[in-house]
């Protein structure tokens, strides 16, 4: 990205909103910020409308702070709660339809390769569990089969939250939600394993309670997608509204699920990705 793009024309300086001025003066474009720097720079997301305590909102902040090259990143989202926040994100981002995010990202990435063969253009899909594991699963998996150079991040709140709390494929078995009035009668979809056998070069499950782990996963996923092929990051991001949690109970819930083993975290690193990370991270895992 040309930094001149965000620069304010001198005659408009007095009328530009404060938040935009901050984006120009203290934003993360071209900077090497990470989650440890949160609070010291202007974040890419501003005044989102998500609920208090929302696991998605925190995860999105962490993802956006972890992007290795925000100035060259285009996000493809999908229908769901996260779409409500994406209009507040200072990156080019696409909300096409429900479930087609990985197909849109495929066309976008291939076209950007044609237009900018010598530049980095990271295409990152960020969508919910319904969009990724249910309605869009065929297109998600087909993009992995085709070895597209895109990163797929699932914000897993284990429900269709934006439509009022319905069961999704990622909902835990026996959970009672709308459209599962007697409790969900099949297990949570193990998409991380599916991703691994479907051709992803790097797969991680993580959560916003461990922000450094999340940051590392997002960075690795994007770098591996750039160099090798598809990558998948699944983030447990609970919904306080539909799961009837108090806002301050969300992170405790995340930690608890990890501790009791009902939402394990971890990484799958392909041999090629291992080689790449070693060269980039100087041998440290």
């Amino acid at each position, binding site marked *: 990205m040309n930094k001149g793009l965000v620069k304010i024309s001198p005659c408009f300086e007095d009328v530009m909103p404060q938040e935009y001025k901050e984006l120009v003066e203290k934003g993360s474009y071209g900077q090497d910020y990470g989650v440890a720097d949160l609070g010291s720079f202007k974040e890419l997301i501003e005044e989102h409308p998500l609920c208090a305590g929302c696991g998605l909102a925190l995860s999105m902040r962490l993802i956006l702070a972890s992007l290795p090259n925000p100035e060259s990143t285009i996000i493809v989202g999908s229908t769901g709660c996260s779409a409500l926040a994406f209009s507040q994100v200072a990156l080019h981002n696409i909300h096409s339809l429900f479930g087609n995010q990985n197909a849109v990202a495929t066309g976008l990435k291939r076209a950007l390769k044609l*237009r900018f063969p010598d530049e980095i253009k990271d295409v990152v899909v960020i969508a919910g569990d319904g969009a990724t594991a249910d309605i869009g699963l065929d297109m998600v998996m087909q993009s992995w089969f085709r070895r597209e150079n895109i990163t797929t991040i699932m914000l897993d709140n284990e429900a269709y939250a934006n439509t009022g709390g319905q069961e999704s494929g990622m909902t835990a078995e026996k959970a009672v939600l709308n459209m599962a009035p007697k409790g969900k009668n099949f297990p949570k979809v193990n998409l991380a394993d599916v991703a691994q056998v479907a051709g992803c070069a790097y797969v991680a499950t993580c959560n916003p309670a461990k922000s450094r782990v999340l940051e590392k996963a997002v960075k690795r996923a994007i770098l591996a997608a750039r160099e090798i092929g598809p990558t998948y990051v699944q983030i447990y991001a609970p919904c306080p509204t539909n799961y009837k949690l108090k806002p301050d109970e969300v992170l405790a819930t995340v930690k608890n699920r990890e501790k009791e083993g009902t939402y394990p975290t971890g990484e799958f690193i392909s041999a090629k990705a291992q080689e790449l990370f070693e060269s980039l991270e100087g041998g440290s895992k």
Partner: protein
Amino acid sequence: MIDQKIVDPQHLFFEADREKRFITGSEAVKEAIKRANVDMAISYPITPQSESMHLVGDLFAEGYLKEYFRGENEFAVMSEVTGAAMAGVRVFTATGGPGTLRAFEMFPTWVGARLPIVCAFLTRGVNSPLTIQPDTIEMAFMLDTGMLMLHAEDAQDLYDMLLKAFIIAEQTDVHIPIGVYADGFFVTHTRETIEVAPEDDKLPGYNPYSSPVPVMDMVNAPVRQMRDPFVMKSNFISYATHASWQQEVLAAGERARKHIDYYLNGLLEVENEKADILIMTSGTAVSQSREAIALAREEGINVGLVKLKSIRPFPTEEIKALTENTKAIIVPEFNRVGWLAREIKSVVKDSDKVMGGPRVFGGMTMPVELILDEIRRCVS
């Protein structure tokens, strides 16, 4: 990449020497795309359009296109085409019949996103019940997507309309998608002599920044930009924005009229317009009607012909003016519902004089005698 000479659209369409080729409609698609300077094409098989996209694949292998692949289903292909168009390249795809319906959610989305995608619809019946035969019923579904719709009579039209569609769709004041329709099998699988421009000529490339909306490449402003967020808030400003955007999309379709008029030499073509009886139709029904009109002439019946080339925008004013003194209008169609007759009835002053039919569907050909019978009925 194959080295071709970039020529002005005006030259390619109207001035360049043309060579004669005896080819199928599918091959006419290939000839058009060869000269269209398309960056990327995405395919998915369905009869009767598969051969067209095989041939476009051959163009990719020969170095005429920079990127080509097979997608996983029509909805996905139309989504992949969306991503490519949003990234600022010229894209092409084709489908037909059940594929059109499978992809349907994407078509109004293309329009709302102001994407100048050109898609060939090589029509066939939809499954009610199962069929793979010729039929134009999918066009009925497409009428209100906001996409522009051109209907080719033959392979020559298909070649010309496809090439011109890119230039019309990419005008900044239009910049919405165009569907170029041709009757599957009748056009795609038959051979005729058509004239094509020299194959080392091609159109100028697409300039992504001619788009009236930002390209999603993180190179152009504004950076805080979501495609397309208007309905994401529940308040009056959000509703008003969405409503005014839809009006602007409609207006973009209206603004296409002058470009279609120029490049296609009118939204319709008329022969013998003063006749009491007019046959008004589109696609291969026009060719069948020509035969019927010749037979009617032998019987001493004077019948005129109106060939509709642009279905969206619809030539409303042209038809109103043409039919002021007409006694009867016959609308032969290759579908069950008679969507074209409905369209014509909605604009003709006295709609009772519009005879909806004859109609054939489910794969039947249109016997010229059927049209002739209708002409005779109008006389008596």
